[in-house]
Protein backbone atom coordinates (compact mmCIF):
# COMPACT_ATOMS: atom_id res chain seq x y z
CA UNK A 1 0.00 0.00 0.00
CA UNK A 2 2.84 2.36 0.80
CA UNK A 3 4.54 1.52 -2.47
CA UNK A 4 1.34 2.12 -4.45
CA UNK A 5 1.42 5.82 -3.78
CA UNK A 6 5.04 6.01 -4.95
CA UNK A 7 4.10 4.38 -8.26
CA UNK A 8 1.39 6.94 -8.89
CA UNK A 9 3.23 9.89 -7.38
CA UNK A 10 4.59 11.24 -10.72
CA UNK A 11 1.03 11.38 -12.05
CA UNK A 12 -0.15 13.18 -8.93
CA UNK A 13 2.75 15.64 -9.01
CA UNK A 14 2.14 16.53 -12.64
CA UNK A 15 -1.63 16.86 -12.22
CA UNK A 16 -1.39 18.98 -9.09
CA UNK A 17 1.31 21.05 -10.79
CA UNK A 18 -0.99 21.63 -13.77
CA UNK A 19 -3.79 22.81 -11.50
CA UNK A 20 -1.34 25.06 -9.66
CA UNK A 21 -0.15 26.58 -12.93
CA UNK A 22 -3.77 27.09 -13.97
CA UNK A 23 -4.47 28.99 -10.75
CA UNK A 24 -1.32 31.07 -11.19
CA UNK A 25 -2.47 32.11 -14.67
CA UNK A 26 -5.05 34.30 -12.99
CA UNK A 27 -2.36 36.58 -11.59
CA UNK A 28 -1.15 39.28 -13.91
CA UNK A 29 2.08 39.99 -12.05
CA UNK A 30 3.55 36.57 -12.73
CA UNK A 31 5.92 36.51 -15.67
CA UNK A 32 6.21 33.80 -18.30
CA UNK A 33 9.70 32.90 -17.06
CA UNK A 34 8.32 32.06 -13.64
CA UNK A 35 5.66 29.76 -15.06
CA UNK A 36 8.24 28.09 -17.28
CA UNK A 37 10.64 27.57 -14.37
CA UNK A 38 7.81 26.23 -12.22
CA UNK A 39 6.74 23.70 -14.85
CA UNK A 40 10.38 22.65 -15.37
CA UNK A 41 10.59 22.12 -11.59
CA UNK A 42 7.38 20.04 -11.58
CA UNK A 43 8.62 17.85 -14.41
CA UNK A 44 12.05 17.44 -12.82
CA UNK A 45 10.49 16.35 -9.53
CA UNK A 46 8.16 13.90 -11.29
CA UNK A 47 11.11 12.55 -13.29
CA UNK A 48 13.14 11.95 -10.14
CA UNK A 49 10.26 10.12 -8.42
CA UNK A 50 9.72 8.08 -11.55
CA UNK A 51 13.27 6.72 -11.25
CA UNK A 52 12.10 4.30 -8.53
CA UNK A 53 12.16 0.87 -10.21
CA UNK A 54 8.96 -1.17 -10.42
CA UNK A 55 9.78 -4.48 -12.11
CA UNK A 56 8.82 -6.19 -15.33
CA UNK A 57 5.47 -7.57 -14.21
CA UNK A 58 2.41 -5.39 -13.94
CA UNK A 59 1.63 -3.96 -10.53
CA UNK A 60 -1.93 -2.76 -9.94
CA UNK A 61 -1.80 0.21 -7.58
CA UNK A 62 -4.80 0.66 -5.24
CA UNK A 63 -6.51 -2.30 -6.84
CA UNK A 64 -9.51 -2.22 -4.51
CA UNK A 65 -10.26 1.45 -5.23
CA UNK A 66 -9.39 1.69 -8.91
CA UNK A 67 -10.59 -1.86 -9.74
CA UNK A 68 -7.40 -2.67 -11.62
CA UNK A 69 -7.93 0.12 -14.15
CA UNK A 70 -4.34 1.28 -13.73
CA UNK A 71 -1.25 -0.87 -14.00
CA UNK A 72 2.38 0.12 -13.73
CA UNK A 73 5.48 -1.77 -14.79
CA UNK A 74 8.94 -0.86 -15.96
CA UNK A 75 7.51 -0.36 -19.45
CA UNK A 76 5.04 2.31 -18.33
CA UNK A 77 7.71 3.77 -16.01
CA UNK A 78 10.23 4.35 -18.79
CA UNK A 79 7.54 5.57 -21.20
CA UNK A 80 6.43 8.04 -18.52
CA UNK A 81 10.01 9.17 -18.01
CA UNK A 82 10.34 9.91 -21.73
CA UNK A 83 7.04 11.83 -21.70
CA UNK A 84 8.00 13.84 -18.62
CA UNK A 85 11.40 14.66 -20.13
CA UNK A 86 9.65 15.82 -23.33
CA UNK A 87 7.49 18.13 -21.23
CA UNK A 88 10.54 19.47 -19.40
CA UNK A 89 12.51 20.30 -22.53
CA UNK A 90 9.46 21.78 -24.25
CA UNK A 91 8.84 24.08 -21.28
CA UNK A 92 12.48 25.16 -21.45
CA UNK A 93 12.60 25.87 -25.16
CA UNK A 94 9.16 27.52 -25.20
CA UNK A 95 10.46 30.41 -23.15
CA UNK A 96 13.09 31.25 -25.78
CA UNK A 97 10.44 30.92 -28.45
CA UNK A 98 8.03 33.33 -26.77
CA UNK A 99 10.72 36.00 -26.62
CA UNK A 100 10.42 36.43 -30.37
CA UNK A 101 6.85 35.26 -30.91
CA UNK A 102 4.68 37.53 -28.90
CA UNK A 103 1.66 35.40 -28.11
CA UNK A 104 2.74 33.47 -25.04
CA UNK A 105 0.63 33.44 -21.93
CA UNK A 106 0.71 31.58 -18.64
CA UNK A 107 -1.98 29.09 -19.63
CA UNK A 108 0.40 27.63 -22.18
CA UNK A 109 2.41 25.90 -19.47
CA UNK A 110 -0.69 24.82 -17.60
CA UNK A 111 -2.20 23.20 -20.69
CA UNK A 112 1.08 21.49 -21.53
CA UNK A 113 1.30 20.07 -18.02
CA UNK A 114 -2.30 18.86 -18.26
CA UNK A 115 -1.41 17.15 -21.53
CA UNK A 116 1.51 15.40 -19.83
CA UNK A 117 -0.69 14.22 -16.98
CA UNK A 118 -3.16 12.79 -19.50
CA UNK A 119 -0.31 11.04 -21.29
CA UNK A 120 0.94 9.48 -18.05
CA UNK A 121 -2.58 8.16 -17.48
CA UNK A 122 -2.64 6.82 -21.03
CA UNK A 123 0.46 4.70 -20.47
CA UNK A 124 -0.96 3.20 -17.29
CA UNK A 125 -4.61 2.75 -18.22
CA UNK A 126 -5.82 -0.84 -18.39
CA UNK A 127 -9.41 -0.15 -19.30
CA UNK A 128 -10.85 1.29 -22.50
CA UNK A 129 -13.03 4.04 -21.05
CA UNK A 130 -10.13 5.29 -18.94
CA UNK A 131 -7.96 5.25 -22.07
CA UNK A 132 -10.63 7.23 -23.91
CA UNK A 133 -10.91 9.92 -21.26
CA UNK A 134 -7.14 10.24 -20.95
CA UNK A 135 -6.84 10.39 -24.74
CA UNK A 136 -9.43 13.16 -24.94
CA UNK A 137 -7.68 15.09 -22.16
CA UNK A 138 -4.45 14.95 -24.12
CA UNK A 139 -6.13 15.79 -27.42
CA UNK A 140 -8.10 18.73 -26.04
CA UNK A 141 -5.06 20.37 -24.52
CA UNK A 142 -3.06 19.80 -27.69
CA UNK A 143 -5.83 21.26 -29.90
CA UNK A 144 -5.62 24.46 -27.89
CA UNK A 145 -1.81 24.49 -27.95
CA UNK A 146 -1.82 24.04 -31.74
CA UNK A 147 -4.11 27.03 -32.17
CA UNK A 148 -2.32 29.14 -29.59
CA UNK A 149 -1.29 31.83 -32.05
CA UNK A 150 -4.70 33.18 -32.95
CA UNK A 151 -3.34 35.89 -35.22
CA UNK A 152 -1.90 33.32 -37.60
CA UNK A 153 -4.24 31.99 -40.29
CA UNK A 154 -2.15 28.84 -40.78
CA UNK A 155 -2.42 28.10 -37.09
CA UNK A 156 -6.21 28.46 -37.17
CA UNK A 157 -6.40 26.21 -40.20
CA UNK A 158 -4.26 23.63 -38.40
CA UNK A 159 -6.39 23.61 -35.28
CA UNK A 160 -9.61 23.31 -37.29
CA UNK A 161 -8.29 20.37 -39.31
CA UNK A 162 -6.91 18.65 -36.25
CA UNK A 163 -10.01 19.26 -34.17
CA UNK A 164 -12.46 17.90 -36.75
CA UNK A 165 -10.39 14.89 -37.76
CA UNK A 166 -9.44 14.23 -34.15
CA UNK A 167 -13.08 14.32 -33.08
CA UNK A 168 -13.82 11.85 -35.85
CA UNK A 169 -11.06 9.54 -34.58
CA UNK A 170 -12.44 9.95 -31.06
CA UNK A 171 -15.86 8.90 -32.38
CA UNK A 172 -14.31 5.78 -33.88
CA UNK A 173 -12.68 5.02 -30.55
CA UNK A 174 -15.98 5.39 -28.68
CA UNK A 175 -17.77 3.15 -31.18
CA UNK A 176 -14.99 0.58 -30.75
CA UNK A 177 -15.49 0.65 -26.98
CA UNK A 178 -19.24 0.16 -27.43
CA UNK A 179 -18.70 -2.86 -29.67
CA UNK A 180 -16.16 -4.42 -27.30
CA UNK A 181 -18.59 -3.90 -24.44
CA UNK A 182 -21.36 -5.46 -26.53
CA UNK A 183 -19.17 -8.49 -27.14
CA UNK A 184 -17.84 -9.04 -23.63
CA UNK A 185 -19.86 -6.96 -21.20
CA UNK A 186 -16.56 -5.59 -19.96
CA UNK A 187 -14.02 -3.05 -21.16
CA UNK A 188 -11.00 -4.05 -19.09
CA UNK A 189 -7.85 -5.18 -20.85
CA UNK A 190 -7.73 -8.26 -18.61
CA UNK A 191 -11.18 -9.41 -19.77
CA UNK A 192 -10.28 -8.84 -23.43
CA UNK A 193 -7.03 -10.78 -23.05
CA UNK A 194 -8.82 -13.65 -21.29
CA UNK A 195 -11.53 -13.85 -23.95
CA UNK A 196 -9.08 -13.70 -26.86
CA UNK A 197 -6.72 -16.32 -25.45
CA UNK A 198 -9.68 -18.60 -24.70
CA UNK A 199 -11.65 -18.40 -27.98
CA UNK A 200 -9.38 -16.58 -30.39
CA UNK A 201 -10.06 -13.14 -31.74
CA UNK A 202 -11.98 -13.78 -34.95
CA UNK A 203 -14.64 -16.01 -33.35
CA UNK A 204 -16.16 -12.93 -31.85
CA UNK A 205 -16.89 -10.43 -34.65
CA UNK A 206 -17.98 -7.64 -32.32
CA UNK A 207 -14.77 -7.87 -30.30
CA UNK A 208 -12.60 -8.01 -33.43
CA UNK A 209 -14.45 -5.11 -35.06
CA UNK A 210 -14.36 -3.04 -31.88
CA UNK A 211 -10.64 -3.53 -31.45
CA UNK A 212 -10.13 -2.71 -35.12
CA UNK A 213 -11.91 0.64 -34.71
CA UNK A 214 -9.83 1.35 -31.58
CA UNK A 215 -6.65 0.54 -33.51
CA UNK A 216 -7.71 2.89 -36.32
CA UNK A 217 -8.25 5.73 -33.86
CA UNK A 218 -4.82 5.15 -32.34
CA UNK A 219 -3.25 4.87 -35.81
CA UNK A 220 -4.73 8.27 -36.58
CA UNK A 221 -2.99 9.79 -33.57
CA UNK A 222 0.42 8.32 -34.47
CA UNK A 223 0.00 9.01 -38.22
CA UNK A 224 0.09 5.51 -39.67
CA UNK A 225 -0.26 5.56 -43.46
CA UNK A 226 -3.91 5.98 -44.49
CA UNK A 227 -4.53 8.24 -41.49
CA UNK A 228 -1.52 10.51 -41.94
CA UNK A 229 -2.89 13.26 -44.16
CA UNK A 230 -3.45 15.80 -41.37
CA UNK A 231 0.00 15.69 -39.91
CA UNK A 232 1.96 17.92 -42.28
CA UNK A 233 -0.46 20.85 -42.12
CA UNK A 234 -1.02 20.58 -38.38
CA UNK A 235 2.68 20.38 -37.52
CA UNK A 236 3.30 23.28 -39.85
CA UNK A 237 0.64 25.48 -38.31
CA UNK A 238 1.47 24.76 -34.66
CA UNK A 239 4.00 26.88 -32.75
CA UNK A 240 7.47 25.27 -32.91
CA UNK A 241 7.68 24.04 -29.29
CA UNK A 242 4.18 22.54 -29.60
CA UNK A 243 5.16 20.74 -32.80
CA UNK A 244 8.14 19.23 -30.99
CA UNK A 245 5.95 18.26 -28.06
CA UNK A 246 3.35 16.60 -30.30
CA UNK A 247 5.97 14.76 -32.30
CA UNK A 248 7.61 13.25 -29.23
CA UNK A 249 5.47 13.09 -26.09
CA UNK A 250 2.17 12.35 -27.85
CA UNK A 251 3.77 9.69 -30.02
CA UNK A 252 5.38 8.02 -27.00
CA UNK A 253 2.08 7.90 -25.11
CA UNK A 254 0.06 6.52 -28.02
CA UNK A 255 2.72 3.94 -28.93
CA UNK A 256 2.62 2.78 -25.30
CA UNK A 257 -1.17 2.33 -25.56
CA UNK A 258 -0.79 0.56 -28.92
CA UNK A 259 1.75 -1.81 -27.38
CA UNK A 260 -0.58 -2.42 -24.43
CA UNK A 261 -3.51 -3.23 -26.75
CA UNK A 262 -1.69 -5.16 -29.48
CA UNK A 263 0.29 -7.32 -27.08
CA UNK A 264 -2.64 -8.17 -24.79
CA UNK A 265 -2.82 -11.63 -26.26
CA UNK A 266 -0.75 -13.25 -28.98
CA UNK A 267 -3.80 -13.79 -31.15
CA UNK A 268 -4.59 -10.08 -31.50
CA UNK A 269 -1.31 -9.41 -33.21
CA UNK A 270 -1.32 -12.66 -35.20
CA UNK A 271 -4.78 -11.99 -36.66
CA UNK A 272 -3.80 -8.61 -38.01
CA UNK A 273 -0.22 -9.38 -38.94
CA UNK A 274 -0.88 -8.96 -42.68
CA UNK A 275 -2.67 -5.66 -42.23
CA UNK A 276 0.06 -4.37 -39.92
CA UNK A 277 2.73 -5.49 -42.37
CA UNK A 278 1.26 -3.56 -45.32
CA UNK A 279 0.47 -0.53 -43.20
CA UNK A 280 4.06 -0.47 -41.95
CA UNK A 281 5.55 -0.67 -45.44
CA UNK A 282 3.21 2.02 -46.75
CA UNK A 283 3.88 4.24 -43.73
CA UNK A 284 7.63 4.01 -44.24
CA UNK A 285 7.52 4.88 -47.92
CA UNK A 286 4.67 7.38 -47.91
CA UNK A 287 6.48 9.30 -45.17
CA UNK A 288 9.72 9.33 -47.13
CA UNK A 289 7.98 10.37 -50.32
CA UNK A 290 6.21 13.27 -48.62
CA UNK A 291 9.36 14.38 -46.80
CA UNK A 292 11.46 14.45 -49.96
CA UNK A 293 9.07 16.92 -51.57
CA UNK A 294 9.08 19.48 -48.73
CA UNK A 295 10.93 22.77 -48.70
CA UNK A 296 9.83 23.86 -45.24
CA UNK A 297 11.78 22.45 -42.32
CA UNK A 298 8.75 21.91 -40.09
CA UNK A 299 6.84 20.13 -42.85
CA UNK A 300 9.86 17.92 -43.55
CA UNK A 301 10.12 17.02 -39.86
CA UNK A 302 6.39 16.27 -39.76
CA UNK A 303 6.71 13.92 -42.72
CA UNK A 304 9.81 12.30 -41.27
CA UNK A 305 7.78 11.66 -38.12
CA UNK A 306 5.58 9.39 -40.26
CA UNK A 307 8.68 7.38 -41.19
CA UNK A 308 9.70 7.04 -37.54
CA UNK A 309 6.20 5.75 -36.76
CA UNK A 310 6.86 3.12 -39.42
CA UNK A 311 9.98 1.97 -37.57
CA UNK A 312 8.05 1.76 -34.31
CA UNK A 313 5.43 -0.36 -36.08
CA UNK A 314 8.19 -2.72 -37.24
CA UNK A 315 9.20 -3.08 -33.61
CA UNK A 316 5.58 -3.66 -32.54
CA UNK A 317 5.21 -6.38 -35.15
CA UNK A 318 8.51 -8.05 -34.33
CA UNK A 319 8.70 -8.05 -30.52
CA UNK A 320 7.53 -11.29 -28.99
CA UNK A 321 4.36 -10.93 -27.00
CA UNK A 322 5.01 -13.51 -24.28
CA UNK A 323 8.04 -11.82 -22.77
CA UNK A 324 7.36 -8.22 -23.53
CA UNK A 325 9.72 -5.75 -22.00
CA UNK A 326 9.38 -3.19 -24.74
CA UNK A 327 13.02 -2.19 -24.37
CA UNK A 328 13.56 -1.89 -28.13
CA UNK A 329 10.49 0.30 -28.59
CA UNK A 330 11.33 2.46 -25.58
CA UNK A 331 14.93 2.85 -26.67
CA UNK A 332 13.85 3.98 -30.13
CA UNK A 333 11.30 6.37 -28.63
CA UNK A 334 13.92 7.86 -26.31
CA UNK A 335 16.44 8.27 -29.12
CA UNK A 336 13.84 9.76 -31.45
CA UNK A 337 12.48 12.05 -28.74
CA UNK A 338 15.96 13.36 -27.85
CA UNK A 339 16.87 14.18 -31.45
CA UNK A 340 13.48 15.60 -32.41
CA UNK A 341 13.16 17.74 -29.29
CA UNK A 342 16.73 18.89 -29.85
CA UNK A 343 16.03 20.07 -33.35
CA UNK A 344 12.83 21.83 -32.29
CA UNK A 345 14.66 23.49 -29.39
CA UNK A 346 17.26 24.76 -31.86
CA UNK A 347 14.50 25.99 -34.16
CA UNK A 348 12.74 27.72 -31.25
CA UNK A 349 15.96 29.61 -30.71
CA UNK A 350 16.88 30.33 -34.33
CA UNK A 351 13.62 30.75 -36.21
CA UNK A 352 13.44 34.48 -35.46
CA UNK A 353 10.53 36.83 -35.05
CA UNK A 354 7.19 35.26 -35.96
CA UNK A 355 8.92 32.12 -37.22
CA UNK A 356 10.29 33.93 -40.26
CA UNK A 357 12.98 31.32 -40.98
CA UNK A 358 11.20 28.14 -41.98
CA UNK A 359 12.67 26.84 -45.24
CA UNK A 360 15.88 24.95 -45.88
CA UNK A 361 17.34 27.98 -47.70
CA UNK A 362 16.74 30.24 -44.73
CA UNK A 363 19.36 28.28 -42.80
CA UNK A 364 22.08 28.56 -45.47
CA UNK A 365 25.46 29.30 -43.97
CA UNK A 366 24.34 28.86 -40.37
CA UNK A 367 27.63 27.08 -39.60
CA UNK A 368 29.62 30.22 -40.47
CA UNK A 369 27.59 32.50 -38.20
CA UNK A 370 26.61 30.16 -35.38
CA UNK A 371 28.94 27.15 -35.48
CA UNK A 372 27.73 25.61 -32.20
CA UNK A 373 24.06 25.74 -33.17
CA UNK A 374 24.87 24.23 -36.55
CA UNK A 375 26.90 21.46 -34.90
CA UNK A 376 24.03 20.63 -32.52
CA UNK A 377 21.50 20.54 -35.38
CA UNK A 378 23.87 18.30 -37.32
CA UNK A 379 24.08 15.84 -34.43
CA UNK A 380 20.29 15.71 -34.20
CA UNK A 381 19.84 15.27 -37.95
CA UNK A 382 22.46 12.51 -38.10
CA UNK A 383 20.72 10.76 -35.24
CA UNK A 384 17.35 10.95 -37.03
CA UNK A 385 18.93 9.69 -40.23
CA UNK A 386 20.52 6.82 -38.30
CA UNK A 387 24.24 7.41 -38.67
CA UNK A 388 26.66 6.17 -35.97
CA UNK A 389 27.69 7.06 -33.27
CA UNK A 390 24.27 8.48 -32.39
CA UNK A 391 21.31 7.10 -30.47
CA UNK A 392 19.19 7.09 -33.62
CA UNK A 393 21.57 4.64 -35.27
CA UNK A 394 21.46 2.26 -32.31
CA UNK A 395 17.66 2.53 -32.16
CA UNK A 396 17.29 1.59 -35.81
CA UNK A 397 19.89 -1.16 -35.41
CA UNK A 398 18.00 -2.71 -32.48
CA UNK A 399 14.71 -2.56 -34.36
CA UNK A 400 16.14 -4.11 -37.53
CA UNK A 401 17.91 -6.86 -35.56
CA UNK A 402 14.68 -7.59 -33.68
CA UNK A 403 12.76 -7.79 -36.95
CA UNK A 404 15.38 -10.15 -38.39
CA UNK A 405 15.34 -12.38 -35.32
CA UNK A 406 11.56 -12.43 -35.34
CA UNK A 407 11.60 -13.76 -38.91
CA UNK A 408 10.46 -10.54 -40.58
CA UNK A 409 13.36 -10.30 -43.02
CA UNK A 410 11.41 -8.23 -45.57
CA UNK A 411 10.59 -5.61 -42.97
CA UNK A 412 14.22 -5.50 -41.85
CA UNK A 413 15.39 -4.93 -45.44
CA UNK A 414 12.71 -2.30 -46.11
CA UNK A 415 13.69 -0.55 -42.90
CA UNK A 416 17.27 -0.24 -44.15
CA UNK A 417 16.11 0.97 -47.57
CA UNK A 418 13.89 3.61 -46.01
CA UNK A 419 16.73 4.72 -43.77
CA UNK A 420 18.91 5.27 -46.84
CA UNK A 421 16.11 7.20 -48.57
CA UNK A 422 15.72 9.43 -45.54
CA UNK A 423 19.35 10.62 -45.86
CA UNK A 424 18.17 12.74 -48.78
CA UNK A 425 16.18 15.19 -46.76
CA UNK A 426 18.22 15.13 -43.56
CA UNK A 427 21.52 15.78 -45.33
CA UNK A 428 19.94 18.56 -47.37
CA UNK A 429 19.81 20.79 -44.31
CA UNK A 430 23.37 19.89 -43.31
CA UNK A 431 24.56 20.79 -46.79
CA UNK A 432 22.68 24.07 -46.65
CA UNK A 433 24.17 24.93 -43.27
CA UNK A 434 27.78 24.03 -44.06
CA UNK A 435 28.32 24.49 -47.79
CA UNK A 436 26.48 27.71 -48.55
CA UNK A 437 27.34 31.30 -47.88
CA UNK A 438 25.47 33.09 -45.12
CA UNK A 439 23.28 36.01 -46.10
CA UNK A 440 21.55 36.25 -42.75
CA UNK A 441 22.86 37.30 -39.35
CA UNK A 442 20.63 34.82 -37.48
CA UNK A 443 19.86 37.28 -34.74
CA UNK A 444 18.22 35.64 -31.72
CA UNK A 445 16.45 36.79 -28.62
CA UNK A 446 19.48 36.06 -26.47
CA UNK A 447 17.46 33.82 -24.19
CA UNK A 448 19.75 31.03 -23.07
CA UNK A 449 17.23 28.37 -22.11
CA UNK A 450 16.63 26.83 -25.56
CA UNK A 451 20.38 26.62 -26.40
CA UNK A 452 21.02 24.98 -23.02
CA UNK A 453 18.20 22.58 -23.75
CA UNK A 454 19.70 21.75 -27.16
CA UNK A 455 23.13 21.26 -25.61
CA UNK A 456 21.81 18.81 -22.99
CA UNK A 457 19.87 16.93 -25.66
CA UNK A 458 22.91 16.71 -27.94
CA UNK A 459 24.83 15.08 -25.08
CA UNK A 460 21.83 12.78 -24.48
CA UNK A 461 21.84 11.71 -28.13
CA UNK A 462 25.51 10.76 -27.92
CA UNK A 463 25.29 9.24 -24.44
CA UNK A 464 22.18 7.16 -25.17
CA UNK A 465 24.05 5.40 -27.96
CA UNK A 466 26.38 3.93 -25.35
CA UNK A 467 23.49 2.50 -23.36
CA UNK A 468 23.04 -1.22 -24.03
CA UNK A 469 19.62 -2.75 -24.59
CA UNK A 470 18.75 -6.42 -24.20
CA UNK A 471 16.87 -7.55 -27.29
Amino acid at each position, binding site marked *: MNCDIVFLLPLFIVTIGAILLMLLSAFESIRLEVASALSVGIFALAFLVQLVPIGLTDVLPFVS*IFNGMLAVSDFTRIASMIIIACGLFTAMSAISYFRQNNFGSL*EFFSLMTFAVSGMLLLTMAQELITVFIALETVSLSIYVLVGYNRRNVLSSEAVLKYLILGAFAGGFFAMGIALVYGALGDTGFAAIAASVSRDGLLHNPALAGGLLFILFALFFKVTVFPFHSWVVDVYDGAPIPVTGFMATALKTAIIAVLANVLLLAGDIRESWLDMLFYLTVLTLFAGNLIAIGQNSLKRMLAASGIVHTGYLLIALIAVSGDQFSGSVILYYLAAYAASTLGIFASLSYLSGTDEKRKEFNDFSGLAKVRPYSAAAITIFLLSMAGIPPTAGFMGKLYIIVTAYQGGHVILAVLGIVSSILSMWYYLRLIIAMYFHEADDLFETSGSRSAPVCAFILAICVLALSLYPVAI
Partner: protein
Amino acid sequence: MLSQWLFYAFATVSVLGALGLILSRHPMNGALWFVVTLVSLAGLYSLLSASLLFALQLIVYAGAIMSLIIFIIMFLNIQPADIPDEKGKWAYLLGGCLAVIPIGLLLLKIVSSLPEGDVDIVGNGFGQVKSVGLVLFRDWLLPFEIVSILLLVALVGAVVLAGKKEMTQ
Protein backbone atom coordinates in the same frame (compact mmCIF):
# COMPACT_ATOMS: atom_id res chain seq x y z
CA MET B 1 -43.86 -6.89 -28.91
CA LEU B 2 -44.85 -3.30 -28.48
CA SER B 3 -41.42 -2.48 -27.12
CA GLN B 4 -39.85 -3.95 -30.23
CA TRP B 5 -41.95 -1.71 -32.47
CA LEU B 6 -41.09 1.21 -30.25
CA PHE B 7 -37.41 0.37 -30.63
CA TYR B 8 -37.67 0.37 -34.43
CA ALA B 9 -39.60 3.61 -34.39
CA PHE B 10 -37.12 5.41 -32.12
CA ALA B 11 -34.12 4.02 -34.03
CA THR B 12 -35.53 5.15 -37.39
CA VAL B 13 -36.40 8.60 -36.09
CA SER B 14 -32.95 9.08 -34.55
CA VAL B 15 -31.23 8.14 -37.82
CA LEU B 16 -33.58 10.45 -39.73
CA GLY B 17 -32.75 13.29 -37.33
CA ALA B 18 -29.05 12.70 -37.87
CA LEU B 19 -29.55 12.74 -41.64
CA GLY B 20 -31.49 15.97 -41.37
CA LEU B 21 -28.68 17.42 -39.25
CA ILE B 22 -26.02 16.87 -41.87
CA LEU B 23 -28.18 17.62 -44.89
CA SER B 24 -29.83 20.89 -43.86
CA ARG B 25 -28.22 24.06 -45.16
CA HIS B 26 -28.89 26.47 -42.36
CA PRO B 27 -27.24 25.70 -38.97
CA MET B 28 -30.52 26.46 -37.19
CA ASN B 29 -32.35 23.74 -39.10
CA GLY B 30 -29.48 21.41 -38.34
CA ALA B 31 -29.73 22.19 -34.63
CA LEU B 32 -33.47 21.51 -34.60
CA TRP B 33 -32.99 18.21 -36.39
CA PHE B 34 -30.42 17.34 -33.74
CA VAL B 35 -33.09 17.79 -31.06
CA VAL B 36 -35.11 15.08 -32.82
CA THR B 37 -32.15 12.69 -32.60
CA LEU B 38 -31.52 13.48 -28.94
CA VAL B 39 -35.16 12.97 -27.96
CA SER B 40 -35.45 9.68 -29.77
CA LEU B 41 -32.23 8.52 -28.13
CA ALA B 42 -33.87 9.32 -24.80
CA GLY B 43 -36.71 7.04 -25.91
CA LEU B 44 -34.20 4.26 -26.57
CA TYR B 45 -32.73 4.73 -23.09
CA SER B 46 -36.17 4.44 -21.55
CA LEU B 47 -36.68 1.14 -23.40
CA LEU B 48 -33.51 -0.07 -21.67
CA SER B 49 -35.00 0.84 -18.25
CA ALA B 50 -32.31 3.48 -17.81
CA SER B 51 -34.59 5.98 -16.14
CA LEU B 52 -31.88 8.32 -14.82
CA LEU B 53 -30.15 8.41 -18.18
CA PHE B 54 -33.52 9.07 -19.85
CA ALA B 55 -34.14 12.08 -17.63
CA LEU B 56 -30.60 13.41 -18.01
CA GLN B 57 -30.74 13.01 -21.77
CA LEU B 58 -33.91 15.10 -21.92
CA ILE B 59 -32.94 17.72 -19.34
CA VAL B 60 -29.24 18.15 -20.06
CA TYR B 61 -28.81 17.33 -23.74
CA ALA B 62 -32.14 18.02 -25.41
CA GLY B 63 -32.84 20.83 -22.94
CA ALA B 64 -29.82 22.73 -21.68
CA ILE B 65 -27.12 22.00 -24.25
CA MET B 66 -29.41 22.37 -27.25
CA SER B 67 -30.78 25.68 -26.05
CA LEU B 68 -27.21 26.87 -25.57
CA ILE B 69 -26.34 25.84 -29.12
CA ILE B 70 -29.44 27.55 -30.49
CA PHE B 71 -28.66 30.71 -28.51
CA ILE B 72 -25.18 30.78 -30.02
CA ILE B 73 -26.51 30.32 -33.54
CA MET B 74 -28.95 33.18 -32.91
CA PHE B 75 -26.14 35.39 -31.59
CA LEU B 76 -24.19 34.79 -34.79
CA ASN B 77 -27.23 35.99 -36.77
CA ILE B 78 -26.51 33.91 -39.83
CA GLN B 79 -28.07 35.25 -43.03
CA PRO B 80 -28.60 33.14 -46.14
CA ALA B 81 -25.75 35.11 -47.74
CA ASP B 82 -23.34 33.97 -45.00
CA ILE B 83 -23.80 30.30 -45.75
CA PRO B 84 -21.10 29.05 -48.10
CA ASP B 85 -22.19 27.75 -51.46
CA GLU B 86 -21.52 24.05 -51.24
CA LYS B 87 -20.77 23.03 -54.77
CA GLY B 88 -20.67 19.32 -55.47
CA LYS B 89 -22.15 18.54 -52.07
CA TRP B 90 -24.15 15.60 -53.39
CA ALA B 91 -21.17 14.21 -55.29
CA TYR B 92 -19.08 14.33 -52.12
CA LEU B 93 -21.87 12.70 -50.13
CA LEU B 94 -22.23 9.94 -52.70
CA GLY B 95 -18.48 9.37 -52.79
CA GLY B 96 -18.34 9.30 -49.01
CA CYS B 97 -21.17 6.80 -48.84
CA LEU B 98 -19.42 4.53 -51.34
CA ALA B 99 -16.19 4.82 -49.35
CA VAL B 100 -17.78 3.72 -46.09
CA ILE B 101 -19.67 0.75 -47.59
CA PRO B 102 -17.00 -1.75 -46.43
CA ILE B 103 -17.23 -0.38 -42.90
CA GLY B 104 -21.02 -0.58 -43.11
CA LEU B 105 -20.84 -4.23 -44.17
CA LEU B 106 -18.44 -4.94 -41.30
CA LEU B 107 -20.81 -3.24 -38.87
CA LEU B 108 -23.77 -5.24 -40.22
CA LYS B 109 -21.87 -8.46 -39.62
CA ILE B 110 -20.90 -7.34 -36.13
CA VAL B 111 -24.40 -6.27 -35.17
CA SER B 112 -25.91 -9.50 -36.44
CA SER B 113 -23.49 -11.42 -34.23
CA LEU B 114 -24.49 -9.60 -31.05
CA PRO B 115 -26.64 -11.62 -28.67
CA GLU B 116 -30.35 -10.77 -28.65
CA GLY B 117 -31.67 -9.06 -25.58
CA ASP B 118 -35.21 -8.48 -24.49
CA VAL B 119 -36.46 -5.04 -23.64
CA ASP B 120 -38.59 -5.85 -20.62
CA ILE B 121 -38.57 -3.50 -17.69
CA VAL B 122 -35.89 -4.49 -15.18
CA GLY B 123 -36.93 -4.10 -11.57
CA ASN B 124 -34.96 -3.61 -8.36
CA GLY B 125 -34.26 0.06 -8.93
CA PHE B 126 -32.11 -0.65 -11.98
CA GLY B 127 -31.13 2.52 -13.77
CA GLN B 128 -32.25 4.81 -10.98
CA VAL B 129 -30.15 7.41 -9.23
CA LYS B 130 -29.08 5.17 -6.38
CA SER B 131 -27.95 2.18 -8.40
CA VAL B 132 -26.23 4.31 -11.07
CA GLY B 133 -24.47 6.26 -8.32
CA LEU B 134 -23.28 3.11 -6.62
CA VAL B 135 -21.82 1.73 -9.84
CA LEU B 136 -20.28 5.08 -10.70
CA PHE B 137 -18.57 5.63 -7.37
CA ARG B 138 -17.60 2.02 -6.67
CA ASP B 139 -16.66 0.37 -9.94
CA TRP B 140 -15.92 3.38 -12.13
CA LEU B 141 -14.31 5.71 -9.65
CA LEU B 142 -11.16 6.34 -11.67
CA PRO B 143 -12.83 7.33 -14.98
CA PHE B 144 -15.30 9.43 -13.02
CA GLU B 145 -12.51 11.33 -11.32
CA ILE B 146 -10.38 11.89 -14.40
CA VAL B 147 -13.35 13.30 -16.27
CA SER B 148 -12.96 16.27 -13.93
CA ILE B 149 -9.47 16.85 -15.35
CA LEU B 150 -10.91 16.62 -18.87
CA LEU B 151 -13.54 19.24 -18.06
CA LEU B 152 -10.92 21.49 -16.48
CA VAL B 153 -8.77 21.28 -19.61
CA ALA B 154 -11.79 22.13 -21.77
CA LEU B 155 -12.51 25.13 -19.58
CA VAL B 156 -8.95 26.47 -19.68
CA GLY B 157 -8.79 25.84 -23.41
CA ALA B 158 -12.02 27.72 -24.05
CA VAL B 159 -10.72 30.68 -22.03
CA VAL B 160 -7.46 30.70 -23.96
CA LEU B 161 -9.02 30.38 -27.42
CA ALA B 162 -11.93 32.73 -26.85
CA GLY B 163 -10.35 35.22 -24.47
CA LYS B 164 -9.49 38.81 -25.29
CA LYS B 165 -7.33 39.29 -28.35
CA GLU B 166 -4.68 41.37 -26.57
CA MET B 167 -2.18 38.95 -25.13
CA THR B 168 -0.29 39.79 -21.99
CA GLN B 169 3.43 40.50 -22.32
